């Protein structure tokens, strides 16, 4: 069977080369285990992250669009970005270039000066790692490959802000059955459930972790993260599944900070959904980068029989 996402261009983004390396490792390992191929964009650049738009939004559009040009030049019509920030920015560039003539002309001007072709909207589709697995393999395909069911593992699925907001940049969402919801996303829930996990009803799926100010307004971020962690625990979760390196490292950092600075200890663990799916497919914790996470999930995984 060949699926539409069997071979996609891969845009890891800066965070996945740094603090989010575990996500990079586990995404690639998961792709290998599922027979999905990724080809990294050649000589990519930062998408503009969450910061450049505050200097000027059109620079962010240019930075993101340059990566879409590369994908197209490499012969791809789909680029997969696991990081919510990258995914969001590439989607936003796509939207702005198609709807805002001024963004389009600035992008053309900057691309011209930089000496490369300007990206034309509509040529490359940006997808998230969740779309890649959910629509490329699906729950049934995943179930067939599960060797080490996540049975007994209670998971709170945390999607954060940038995967669903603002909704106008995600025209494919909210399209009824089969599509993702921006109000109550479920792709991650669906996949983890297929891998045997028991999803808890988590009301803060799309609440904010304060990632934009994780260092510049640490107290706000710590309070927001602490709320996410305590609520997950109150919902009975053993682990919070994440799908964004900024959220993930924010949760880990501020869990530590809440303990050291506010004296509030929480014990829920934080793992990327790709790490959990990888473990379910029988990959070792090391293969999915559990040792690269800031907080140690091994004792919990051992207790649940997911690691030795």
């Amino acid at each position, binding site marked *: 069977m060949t699926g539409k996402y069997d071979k996609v261009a891969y845009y890891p983004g800066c965070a996945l080369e740094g603090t989010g390396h575990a996500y990079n490792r586990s995404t690639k390992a998961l792709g290998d285990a599922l027979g999905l191929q990724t080809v990294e964009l050649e000589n990519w650049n930062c998408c503009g992250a969450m910061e450049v738009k505050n200097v000027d939004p059109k620079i962010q559009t240019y930075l993101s669009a340059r990566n879409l040009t590369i994908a197209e030049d490499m012969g791809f019509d789909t680029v997969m970005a696991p990081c919510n920030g990258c995914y969001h920015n590439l989607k936003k560039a796509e939207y702005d270039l198609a709807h805002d003539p001024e963004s389009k002309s600035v992008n053309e001007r900057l691309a011209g000066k930089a000496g490369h072709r300007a990206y034309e909207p509509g040529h490359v589709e940006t997808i998230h790692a969740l779309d890649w697995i959910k629509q490329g393999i699906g729950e049934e395909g995943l179930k067939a490959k599960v060797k080490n069911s996540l049975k007994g593992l209670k998971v709170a699925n945390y999607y954060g802000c940038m995967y669903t907001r603002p909704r106008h940049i995600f025209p494919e969402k909210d399209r009824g059955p089969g599509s993702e919801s921006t109000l109550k996303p479920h792709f991650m829930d669906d996949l983890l459930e297929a891998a045997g996990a028991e999803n808890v009803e988590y009301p803060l799926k799309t609440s904010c972790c304060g990632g*934009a100010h994780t260092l510049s307004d640490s107290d706000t971020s710590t309070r927001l993260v602490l709320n996410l962690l305590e609520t997950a625990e109150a919902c009975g979760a053993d682990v919070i599944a994440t799908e964004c390196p900024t959220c993930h490292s924010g949760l880990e950092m501020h869990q530590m900070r809440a303990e050291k600075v506010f004296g509030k200890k929480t014990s829920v663990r934080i793992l990327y959904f790709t790490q959990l799916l990888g473990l379910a497919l029988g990959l070792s914790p090391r293969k999915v980068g559990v040792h690269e996470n800031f907080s140690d999930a091994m004792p919990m995984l051992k207790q649940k029989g997911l690691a030795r």
Partner: protein
Amino acid sequence: MPIHEKSLIRPENLIEHKDLFIDGIDVSGHWSTFINSRALTDYDESMQEEIAALPGGENIHRCWQCGSCTNACTVNALNPDFNPRYWIYLIRNGMKQELLLDKDIVWQCVSCNKCTYACPRDVNPEGVMKATAHWLELKGHTEKKPSMIFDEGFSQQIIETGKIEDGLVIRQFFARTGQKLAQNWLVAMAIGLAKRLPVAMGIKMGFAAVFHPRTRGWSRARAAIKDYVHEREAANRKALGLPTGEDGR
């Protein structure tokens, strides 16, 4: 039995009106009054236009004051003084003095876009928050806030090299804001990680990064972006009626 909404009627809100007639009917007596009517004379006529001229502020005129943004707002839940709906009201009425009372918290918007999601008028309140923070800074009402220091340092690195190395970002931010890197929680985190990581990777990922990622052949893109940044800075200052020369900033 009359229903008394006691919680709404507070003694300090009661105002006595003598000889108050409406359509010939005498309605004199005590009235619960939330907002005293008043005449504004010191409003700033250009404030809305100036904020609308900065990136993100373009749609502020569309607001119909429903309050959905404030109701949805992440930061409002932590601090009720953080109130996008109210600030938009002040800006649209040119009530600068009132806005300045909150000048030191506007920058705390975390860009979660809950407001943008909720807004029925496509105002993009998140953008308005950024434009307002920017306006406050350009006009000299606030010093550069930590978030802007962070954003600028971060953006500079991207413009210079095409990429970001997060360890370096953290180090530079702490240096620029005069904070010690050895915060107890960061140290605890680094030690926790180091215990489980092979040494070489700890060095690569950690705070002593030895490799600096960069995009090859970036110099032309860098020059193009820098030109554009200067152009925009000048345009923003012009829209705010500020001097645009090199020494103007």
